[in-house]
């Protein structure tokens, strides 16, 4: 098969990784307008959970819990006091991520640790190894789960109500504090799941979060505030763009191209692909 045809599934699989790391972020960012710079640290926490547990499938729910609880604590202890100041939250979360990063260094040591891939993921179909397919499946499952939660459960619908108009939702008797907590729990938990997934392809070390955080942000920005379909399209689009840009130029240039395309794209759609319609003024 010609190499450039191979780039198509490769692009999709890069997109799947992007989607998985951005899914939790789009949840917290979109639902609460909170830029969670600590998202990267939750991904890292998920990866270290996988390292401690050693079994991929068991690690998935465990990482969800660990990262989710960390997110919950962060929300309750600090972020909820700052909802009126979203930019401050960003910086606060960055402070948290610095502490978590150093903590990981002290707990697990500075060198990368080894998370062996399970034997059943050895091999692959065509250009795509099984572990990439596994990540793609995981991303799809994540999206479906989030979608089902938002549209098929009462809690999810309440969450959406809060996003669309927080005050109105509060007036109609929704406990917005509880919704926020839950949103943060799920969003951070998804970061943990992403953390388990990336152990299959990349290094596991204290700086793991930094590697992925900027890409995750770009997906959310391009996709639009808290828009699930936006995140999916943006992740796949950026994955393909990355794959072909790198194929025809090189990895460094590809990153610069991706950034330029996003700036250009925001000229056409300043709020990302999908905009949440709201009558609320700034």
């Amino acid at each position, binding site marked *: 098969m010609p*190499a450039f045809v*191979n*780039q198509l599934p*490769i692009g999709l*699989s*890069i997109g799947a*990784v992007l989607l998985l790391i951005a899914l939790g972020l789009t949840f917290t960012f979109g639902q609460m307008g909170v830029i969670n710079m600590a998202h990267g640290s939750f991904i890292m926490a998920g990866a270290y959970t996988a390292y401690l547990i050693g079994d991929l499938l068991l690690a998935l729910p465990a990482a969800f819990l660990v990262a989710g609880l960390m997110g919950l604590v962060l929300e309750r202890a600090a972020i909820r006091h700052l909802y009126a100041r979203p930019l401050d939250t960003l910086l606060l979360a960055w402070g948290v991520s610095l502490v978590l990063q150093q903590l990981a*260094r002290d707990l697990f040591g*500075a*060198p*990368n*640790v*080894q*998370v*062996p*891939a399970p034997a059943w*993921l*050895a*091999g*692959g179909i065509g*250009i795509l*190894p*099984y*572990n*990439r397919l596994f990540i793609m499946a995981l991303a799809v499952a994540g999206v479906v789960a989030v979608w089902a939660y938002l549209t098929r459960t009462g809690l999810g619908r309440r969450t959406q109500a809060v996003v669309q108009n927080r005050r109105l939702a509060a007036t109609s008797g929704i406990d917005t504090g509880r919704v926020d907590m839950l949103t943060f729990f799920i969003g951070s938990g998804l970061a943990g799941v992403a953390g388990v997934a*990336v152990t*299959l*392809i*990349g*290094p*596991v*070390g204290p*700086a793991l979060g*930094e*590697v992925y955080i900027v890409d995750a942000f770009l997906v959310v920005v391009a996709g639009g505030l808290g828009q699930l379909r936006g995140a999916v399209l943006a992740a796949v689009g950026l994955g393909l763009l*990355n*794959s072909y840009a*790198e*194929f025809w130029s*090189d*990895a*460094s240039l590809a*990153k610069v191209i991706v950034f330029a395309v996003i700036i250009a794209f925001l000229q056409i759609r300043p709020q990302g692909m999908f905009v949440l319609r709201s009558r609320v003024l700034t």
Partner: protein
Amino acid sequence: MRIPRPLVSAMLLLALTACGTDAESAAQSNEIKVGLLHSLSGTMAISEVTVRDAELLAIDEINKAGGVLGKKLVPVVEDGASDWPTFAEKATKLIRQDKVAAVFGGWTSASRKAMLPVFERHKALLWYPVQYEGLESSPYIFYTGATTNQQIIPGLDYLREQGKKRLFLVGSDYVFPRTANKIIKAYAAANGMEILGEEYTPLGHTEYSTLVNKVTQARPDAVFNTLNGDSNVAFFKQLKSAGATAESMPVLSVSIAEEEVTGIGVDNIAGHPVAWNYYQTTETPANEAFVQAYKAKYGQDKVTSDPMEAGYNAVYLWAEAVRKAGTTEVEAVRKAAPGIALERPEGLVTIDGENQHLYKTARIGVIQPDGLIKQVWDSGEPIKPDPYLKGYPWAAGLAGAK
């Protein structure tokens, strides 16, 4: 009179900035201060902390054996924080404020380049312990790691002997890989080898599926890998899951030592060759003692690697030069150093008088399932250091302006 508060705070701040200036306690005549300047925090800490540990071990051993010129060595440890300007700043501090006799430090070329003007300006000594890209020989730096003709070129000789004629070059985007690849291309042109591709990725890059696709499509006999740090983990994981094996397509690495193998995962890298001057398994009497002492001091699970050994050697070589000179005075030490030859863990090393590098034996090793590296080839005798590759006709013009 009321003093305006901002004035008070400004004075306070000034006082704070000034403190530490009185650090030069009266020079105690029975001590010699030496500086150790490595990244203890940030991305490079992983590698550099081990070198610092090896240097501290050497200082300990020298002190136990009676010190140098009857004086004890006192290490002053500073953190370069994986940030090149910080290296320059801390080097200045060590020289000007602590007045150290010599500094052992650095890992990345960027940190060395940042420190170079500081040492040249203050006429102080830096001992740099890591293999690097060559094309440099500062009168105030001693290079105890390999230059290109002691690592890259032997690596190529080995691949050629193995019949690997078609190479793919993969590297992180910075000075060492780019310079190394220039040399490799010139070597290939002169030796009838073919370069199928040359790819660079940003430092810290972890998405290698496209690159792996390019490499596997090109079907090279071997890959010459100058990736650095975390990128190696992602590259080897993704290469392995794409089905490439060490038998079908060996990847020769020049930046992966014993330390890094665990993080990459032995499963992912076992069987691939690396090029260095020293392995933990190198069989010399000095190495047996070194490995034993290192493990006794830092833990039985620790491994020793080439840059650690080079840092360990640096302290001994400097101490020997000081003994020979009879003083720690920089110019005298520089004069005394050429020709000093010591039996070290890697075998005999000699300081070259012309460029202040070491004669070193090149060794190719293969990574074993236990994470250690087994030597499969060596250059037989120590190779004369040639940072500008003057002795290689095919490399004419590579050295650039100098």
